């Protein structure tokens, strides 16, 4: 057994986290920053954090992930990291020539209390920031929230630093996609384009974290929202923010700063949430929904109705980030699956309340952990087995020990490809998710059915 020391008996823990279902803020900030075109993220702290964040993002995306670090040593930890950051800014602009350096803090620099804007001003005064180049920052202490919080803060910084109202409204809609894959961002943009909606998406990691193999390395790939587009977000006529935790801070900031009204929705995962997204986008932009989108929707629904018997009443255990889980749980419940154990590592009371609402009609006791960890989740699974697990790669240890099929979903996925190329949002993403769920469930059925009950047609 891989997790041989996990007992089914649950003892309350107040201090020890075992097998976390979250990670720390800066990695989310780094990921968001990569969604700005020409941006070099920078980690202000000791170099280990940066090495870890780059490694984890690299393993998940199988793409280059470059970022600087202030490489604190003992001295910087005592006296503050100003000298380190000014030097880092100088070196990065000189050697790597980014358009933007996006600084995030770490637990260390937060605990010290380094004032990043002040240091950036110092760098500017010293002539270390070339004309037309920018240093932005987000505060990302990891003893608060999780990687999703860091993503949210860096996204909000894009508004704080760049958005401005020029005095003239445009008919453009801002879309804040949430902490999703580059493929998801691409799919959301595709849907908006299909509907004829002019939009600015930020952050936008498509064509950055899923860039093609060409034999030529580009430090700053084609994708990413430009600084110029970020500035124009202040002129847009509305903002659609997807995923409350990851996106609402930026949307609200834009409303306050530039009076751009916003609507905050759940991530468009599954039929209903995609319906809500399309409907909101249609109204906000004043367009009608083209037939092609109806066709996509109809196809997703077709799979649901055709294969409903295999979904019905299947118990599922979910681990992931709050925004993902809220939308995914809704989707699963909508096709009559029963999410019964749901764990996120990110703290927050609203999450449990939302999940309880969504699972109200599930005819089964539902365990919700927020914040919880995978150890607790595993114990729940041992006590009440499920038919399917969904979550990141670390779940495969539980899946193997308990012999339960696993659909990989969320962050990080370290052992499979696909997530950066094929979406799980929108109607097409919903189809892909269902295909994965069905493959997992039916492969298991094919493995386990007795010979006389082995089915050719399903």
């Amino acid at each position: 057994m891989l997790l041989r020391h996990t007992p089914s008996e649950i003892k309350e823990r107040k201090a020890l986290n075992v097998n976390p279902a979250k990670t720390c803020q800066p990695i989310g900030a780094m990921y968001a920053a990569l969604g700005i075109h020409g941006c070099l993220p920078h980690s202000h702290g000791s170099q280990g954090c940066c090495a870890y964040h780059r490694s984890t993002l690299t393993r998940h995306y199988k793409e280059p992930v470059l970022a600087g670090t202030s490489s604190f040593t003992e001295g910087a930890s005592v006296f503050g990291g100003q000298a380190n950051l000014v030097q880092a800014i100088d070196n990065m602009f000189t050697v790597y020539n980014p358009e933007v350096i996006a600084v995030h803090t770490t637990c260390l620099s937060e605990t010290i209390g380094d004032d990043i804007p002040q240091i950036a001003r110092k760098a500017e005064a010293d002539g270390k920031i070339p004309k037309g180049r920018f240093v932005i920052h987000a505060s990302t202490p990891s003893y608060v929230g999780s990687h999703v919080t860091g993503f949210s803060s860096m996204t909000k910084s894009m508004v704080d630093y760049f958005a401005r109202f020029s005095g003239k409204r445009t008919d453009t809609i801002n879309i804040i996609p949430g902490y999703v894959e580059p493929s998801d961002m691409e799919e959301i943009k595709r849907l908006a384009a299909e509907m004829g909606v002019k939009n600015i998406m930020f952050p936008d990691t498509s064509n950055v974290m899923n860039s093609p193999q060409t034999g030529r390395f580009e430090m700053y790939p084609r994708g990413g929202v430009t600084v110029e587009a970020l500035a124009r977000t202040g002129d847009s006529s509305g903002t659609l923010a997807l995923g409350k935790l990851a996106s609402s801070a930026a949307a609200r900031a834009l409303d306050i700063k530039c009076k751009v009204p916003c609507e905050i929705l759940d991530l468009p995962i599954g039929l209903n949430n995609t319906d809500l997204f399309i409907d909101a986008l249609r109204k906000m932009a004043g367009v009608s929904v083209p037939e092609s989108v109806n066709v996509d929707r109809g196809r997703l629904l077709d799979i649901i109705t055709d294969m409903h018997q295999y979904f019905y009443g299947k118990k599922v255990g979910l681990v992931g980030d709050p925004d993902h889980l809220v939308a995914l749980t809704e989707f699963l419940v909508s096709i009559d699956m029963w999410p019964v154990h749901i764990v996120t590592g990110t703290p927050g009371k609203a999450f449990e309340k939302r999940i309880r609402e969504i699972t109200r009609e599930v005819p089964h006791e539902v365990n919700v952990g927020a914040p919880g960890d995978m150890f607790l989740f595993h114990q729940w699974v041992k006590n009440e087995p499920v038919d399917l697990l969904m979550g990141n790669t670390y779940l495969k240890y539980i899946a193997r020990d308990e012999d339960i099929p696993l659909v990989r979903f969320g962050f990080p996925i370290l052992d499979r490809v696909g997530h950066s190329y094929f979406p799980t949002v929108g109607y097409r993403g919903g189809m892909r998710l269902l295909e994965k769920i069905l493959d997992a469930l039916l492969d298991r059925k094919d493995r386990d059915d007795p010979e006389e009950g082995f089915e050719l047609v399903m």
Partner: protein
Amino acid sequence: MSSTCEERTELECEYVDPGEVKQELISRYPTKVARKRAKQIVVNEVGECGEVPEIGANTRTIPGIITQRGCTYAGCKGVILGPTRDIVNITHGPIGCGFYSWLTRRNQTKPEDARDENFMTYCFSTDMQDEDIVFGGEKKLKAAIQEAYDIFKPKAISIFATCPVGLIGDDIHAVAREMKEKLGINIFGFSCEGYRGVSQSAGHHIANNGIFTHVVGGKDEGKEGKFKINLLGEYNIGGDAFEIDRVLEDCGITLVSTFSGNSTYDQFASAHMADLNTVMCHRSINYVADMMENKYGIPWIKVNFIGAEATAKSLRKIAAYFEDEELTARVEEVIARELPAVEKVRDEVRSRCEGKLAMLFVGGSRAHSYQELFREIGMKTIAAGYEFAHRDDYEGRNVLPSIKVDADSRSIEDLEIHPDPQRYRLRKPTEALEELRSKGLPLKEYEGMMAEMAEKTLVVDDISQYETEKLIEIYKPNIFCAGIKEKYVVQKQGVPMKQLHNYDYGGPYAGFKGAINFYEEIDRMVNSKVWSYLKAPWQKCPELSARYACD
């Protein structure tokens, strides 16, 4: 690339003047940075007695340069303590540090029994929150240790401090002592905050000190055998240790402990029962080797089980140390038995790889030891460097007295070690050791990477992203070896990249069978057709009409 590989002949790169390359690498940097990097980039020359130029190493990382390096915590918890299966390792800090070091290093472990302890699949953290940072985290740490004990009943618990912990002043050692007393199991802490050193290397040292102080010598019975050794600095990535174990066992050599691949607490505790220490990764573990010599009288020799010839040589060294005819004969027998299979694959692979170019920028020992494997299949290492090594790993241990101790290294204690009154036992009289030395068995010696590298190759310490890109552009190597962060940067340049930290999820590469695996893997990588698809037909030949002319 199979076709373009041919174009990358030795000839081509002999036209490149390494001095000019060095100039080009540093010309991009601001003056102060260029001056510092100039010391860390060296054109290799080997003098008649093996003397090599001085290189800057183990100095502070330049902020913003985009380094490969990680932190002290990673070196301590991740590298040295990570591979031991039956200690509950609690990371004291916010969640990230623990999360990222959870299962990501590929140290394999194999408990003998299904009920044996194995905590390596678990990640334990105090997940510090706001209030712990403000009011201190000692209370939470104590509670966490108690909970870990209540649930898992381990024989030992260790605590790893992360950056904020040192800053707020939590005394993890006091907590460890108190809980050790209370629970009656061994509990010990490591002050391995990331900022304590310039790289992972500081963490190795801290881990060496901690293990040596708190664990080694705690158990006076260990594995019995006639030829008892410890293997130090072997971390069982991809199952390397299993292959080495197999070979040693065949030779009749008893492995008392491994630091720390596939290891257990009891192995560490009884390590002082061995009669010889063999050191694989000099950088990460030489401290323990020295300390064991001073405290218990166990001599050490440098070995290398990466490469078939190197493996054979290392086995012979061990046999030479024990001066036992039977052992010598057995070792020769094993070598004679293993080598034919290796040679068969080697010769075949060599016919396809001869003359191709490799670059290795990794770790603190593999950038050296893997050159051996490349050499065996006729490939040339054109440039190499370490991520976190010291000058002795480059230039050899004879430069040790001349290494200046700077402020960053001084913060890590060099333990003063005295002979243990009961357990010190000189394994061989000094004269006997001297005689062995004069017969060509180097004791306590490591000649470093540079002496074994060709003239005019480039040696680059703590290589930056920019330098990586530039070197590839200039030399167009056939393969580049580094870690996960470099993997796709290199491959996006159209060059196959082999990870030498985690072996790209392959291995083992140590020992005889490992050598075969490695030859085959490199053959696959440098001779694969997949690299020839970079251009689509219409990119090779954009004209609409002249279709046939292009073929």
